[in-house]
């Protein structure tokens, strides 16, 4: 228990970046942050918890067509706290561009490639992005991003 106390709360670490806080079941805290601050937030987490105790668990892009935005959720698993926190950024649907975190977390490679291929979110600074990472050729040729809600093929 004493060990857990020594580990800082991610909310304190990210305090000045958080726009609002939400909750994903079961008990995963969501910190909505600005899209320009994602690199800072992630490198701050890495610095606070050390390089061997926080890993990027998943990156999930969601196309919210009614609100005209794309949401990007970074799920980060913090091992000493046995907790998963979610960093959520919102991008305009017309021009979904965000900075890549590949040089901070090399493990983001597959998630960024996948999200680009299926949802069309551009990651600045990641030069491994390409269409056809997963999607079959005929869908690529039509320029369709299959996970977008208005996708037709």
């Amino acid at each position, binding site marked *: 228990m004493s060990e857990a106390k020594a580990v800082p709360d991610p909310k304190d670490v990210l305090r000045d970046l958080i726009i609002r806080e939400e909750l994903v079941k079961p008990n995963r805290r969501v910190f909505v942050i600005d899209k320009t601050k994602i690199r800072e937030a992630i490198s701050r987490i890495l610095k606070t918890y050390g390089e061997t105790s926080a890993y990027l668990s998943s990156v999930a892009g969601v196309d919210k067509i009614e609100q005209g935005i794309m949401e990007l959720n970074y799920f980060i698993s913090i091992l000493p706290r046995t907790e998963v926190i979610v960093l959520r950024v919102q991008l305009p649907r017309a021009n979904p561009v965000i900075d890549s975190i590949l040089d901070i977390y090399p493990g983001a490679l597959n998630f960024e490639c996948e999200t680009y291929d299926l949802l069309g979110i551009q990651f600045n600074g990641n030069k491994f992005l390409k269409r056809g990472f997963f*999607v*079959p*050729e*005929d*869908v690529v040729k039509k320029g369709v991003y*299959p996970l977008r809600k208005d996708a037709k*093929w």
Partner: protein
Amino acid sequence: MSIKLIRYSPWLVHFNTGGCNGCDIEVLAALMPHFDPERFGVRLAPSVRHGDILVVTGAITKKAAVRLKRLYDQMPNPKFVVAVGACACDGGVFKGAYGILRGAKEVIPVDAYVPGCPPRPEAILYGIVKLFQKIELLAKAKSK
């Protein structure tokens, strides 16, 4: 005549076209000591060019379909195809997804279908036995 000869020791070529691996481990289990199909001379061929029977498992993804066609063309004649599992038969649960075709029959001619998801090893062996019966009938028809 040559068709009939296959019956004595048919070599399988196993190709997974993008399934979930469930059928693959059952095909593997069918070749294991528990069932030991080498009793009939059935064994996995090291290369397509040595194979007689192509065992297709898994949903046919569009990328893998190209390779399946190429693999089939490379096999020596006479050749037969067994589609194992619901996905290879006609798409299974993946019917309607953007990445896949509805069954191996859209790419290559299929001679026997083994339903199940995944089929038991016994069912796969039964499917191969069924194929032998078909081969025998074909051979008879040819000799006449």
